[in-house]
């Protein structure tokens, strides 16, 4: 379980806030989606969990241990992270990219090879065909599949995903969303997923946390947010989405 209490990240000696007094819990096995426009603090919140960003206030506990007291590298290696701009290592093959965390953890070569082959198949890439390719010889969708496999390599309990499908075209995005849902069913990971896309959130989330201007507006199951919005912001967000959906329906 991840527990976040009064988490704050401020700049300019407390004059501006990226994240302001956010408290939430992520339960075992659930997918929590942090939803909000760019600059709302959702990515910053995510990065504070594995300390890519250090908070200026509040605390974060992962499995009952405060992250500040855990060895930084150990913490990061124990949490899978999928980056928005993918960030594959361009000089390493797909398989080597997947093997990087096991390598840092000192696994044997044989075990690493076996693991990367397994994971490539899991994300739908045939290991023999794609394993030895450099990232630049893979499509965007294939690259992010590698990114997900890399995050899963050391079998972490938690997976942090920062707008992982944001840069992909609509068809690929749809396909990867579906695959993620399948993957989650087989792997039983606890996932925090950041997006600005309400439909993506609705599709993937067990619960949604809506963020605005650094604050957490409301957190709850999709139905709860839809039927009992707690703030005008959440109301507007869903109203806007509803109108878009009607527009799409009307035009078909």
């Amino acid at each position, binding site marked *: 379980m991840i527990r976040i209490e009064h988490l704050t990240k401020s700049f300019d000696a407390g004059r501006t806030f990226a994240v302001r007094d956010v408290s939430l819990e992520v339960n075992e096995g659930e997918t929590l989606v942090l939803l909000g426009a760019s600059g709302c603090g959702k990515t910053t919140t995510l990065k504070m969990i594995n300390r*890519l960003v250090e908070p200026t206030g509040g605390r974060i506990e992962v499995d009952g241990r405060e992250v500040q007291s855990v060895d930084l590298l150990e913490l*990061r290696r124990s949490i899978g*992270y999928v980056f928005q701009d993918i960030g594959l290592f*361009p000089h390493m093959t797909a398989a080597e990219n997947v093997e990087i965390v096991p390598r*840092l953890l000192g696994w044997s070569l044989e075990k690493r090879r076996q693991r990367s082959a397994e994971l490539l198949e899991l994300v739908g890439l045939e290991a023999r065909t794609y394993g030895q390719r450099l990232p630049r010889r893979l499509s965007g969708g294939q690259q992010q599949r590698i990114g997900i496999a890399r995050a899963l390599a050391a079998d972490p309990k938690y997976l942090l995903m920062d707008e992982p499908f944001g840069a992909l075209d609509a068809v690929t995005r749809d396909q990867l969303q579906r695959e993620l849902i399948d993957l989650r069913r087989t792997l039983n990971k606890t996932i925090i997923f950041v997006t600005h896309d309400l439909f993506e959130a609705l599709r993937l989330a067990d619960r949604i946390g809506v963020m605005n201007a650094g604050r957490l507006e409301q957190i709850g199951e999709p139905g709860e947010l839809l039927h009992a919005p707690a703030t005008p912001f959440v109301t507007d967000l869903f109203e806007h989405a509803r109108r878009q959906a009607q527009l799409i329906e009307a035009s078909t």
Partner: protein
Amino acid sequence: MTRSCLCILIALCAIASGAQAQRTETIRIGSKNFTEQEILGELIAQLLERGTDLRVQRRFGLSGTDICHTALMSGELDCYVEYTGTGLLDILKREVISNPDRAYRAVAAGYRRQFDLEWLPPIGFNNSYAIAVRADNAQEYGWNTISDLAADASELRAGFTSEFMERPDGYPGLADRYGFVLGRTMDLDPGLMYDALAQGQVDVICAFSTDGRIAEYNLTVLEDDQSFFPPYDAAPIVRSEVLAAHPRVREVLATLAGTIDDDSMRRMNYAVDVLKRSPAEVAREWIDLRLGSVAAPEDRLEPAAGDERGVLSLAVERRGEVARKIVEHAVLTALGVVIAMLIGVPLGVLIHRRAAARGVVLALTEIVQTIPSLAMLAFLFALYGLLGTAPAVTALVLYALLPIVLNTFTGLREVPRQVIEAADGLGMSSWQRLRLIELPLAAPVIIAGIRAATVLTVGIATLSTYIGAGGLGDFIARGLARNDSRLTLLGAVPAAIMAVALSLLIRLVERLARRA
């Protein structure tokens, strides 16, 4: 990586300790960078080789009096031939003494007291500076004495050696004594001076009175009517402790005393400068003649056999020596570049990570780059008090640093931000990030820097000859000193080929790194 570091360290230690161990058995003979000095150096070296069981090491072509003197003081040289006037004015900073005997006694006493160096008896000739002009000019303008130049002084162009430009018994004192300043002066290499005068590029030069080319080029030496130039009687200087340890050295070199007069010296210089014979050969002939083992034919001063040979046949004939110089040059270059890499890459990493160090490190390496190579070599030589590899390699390292540091920094800075963030996010330590991600990605740019540094180093290494570090520069300097373009090419062509070959080789490595 660590293993190769160790190898280099061991090699450096071996060089250093080798120098130490040799000191007991070896006697090092030096010479300045003009023909007469090389002949005299050869004479002394060959006499000692025949007359003692010491191992003789030659360190010829050193650029100027100061380097020879400093090397003698630091024990890097044991003996070289100096001229009384030079010792008196240039080293001891005394007044001119016109009487040759008194000048010799004064300089010998001064050296013994101040430096513990001993002047052996004079060899016999006086190689004075001589103001020389073209004979046709002398006739046309009626120049007979130096004073005669005064009327036309502001119109005249002079080509003087850099040493003459600065010495108190050179141009400054001359201008002072005669009361005129020449219109334009040019610092010229001693070997080029005569050609420049003969071709009319300059009007006046500071010839050496024993130079064979005075007659060859039909020059007129102007009379020193104000008796400005002191006597320059040549004599070997030897470190006193060497004479004490090896009394035989004194006996052997005593055979030189008073044996070579002005004319004999001029003929030997002529044989080398004009007839293109080697100093070693001319020296050997003279010794054979003196020791009576060979008759004294008058036709000795003929051109060397096959003098008109081209550079190729010269290269074939001297292939052993060429090969040795190429190896020396390659070793100098390799040491310079490898040590520069060992320092430069970590420095590049440092300034990438610590912005505070960036300005200082880049400014320093850039300033080093602007120091003229010869000044750098002279300075490092003074700093080390050593001739040869150590100061030469240090200079090469300093020049090679900038491209390596700069390219390491640039290469690291160009690693995409999201790749760095991914490396951090996956839990790499900063050392792991450097080793697994940053250096491999920056490698092509770093290797390009190393390539630039290597080409630069091959070029600068040709100047190492001026502090006796050997390499292909030896041929270039000798060619310049003797005005023999074949010799210059013998050094310059292999150096150019080496630069191009290394550049291509490293470019290949660079391409491989880029593909990975």
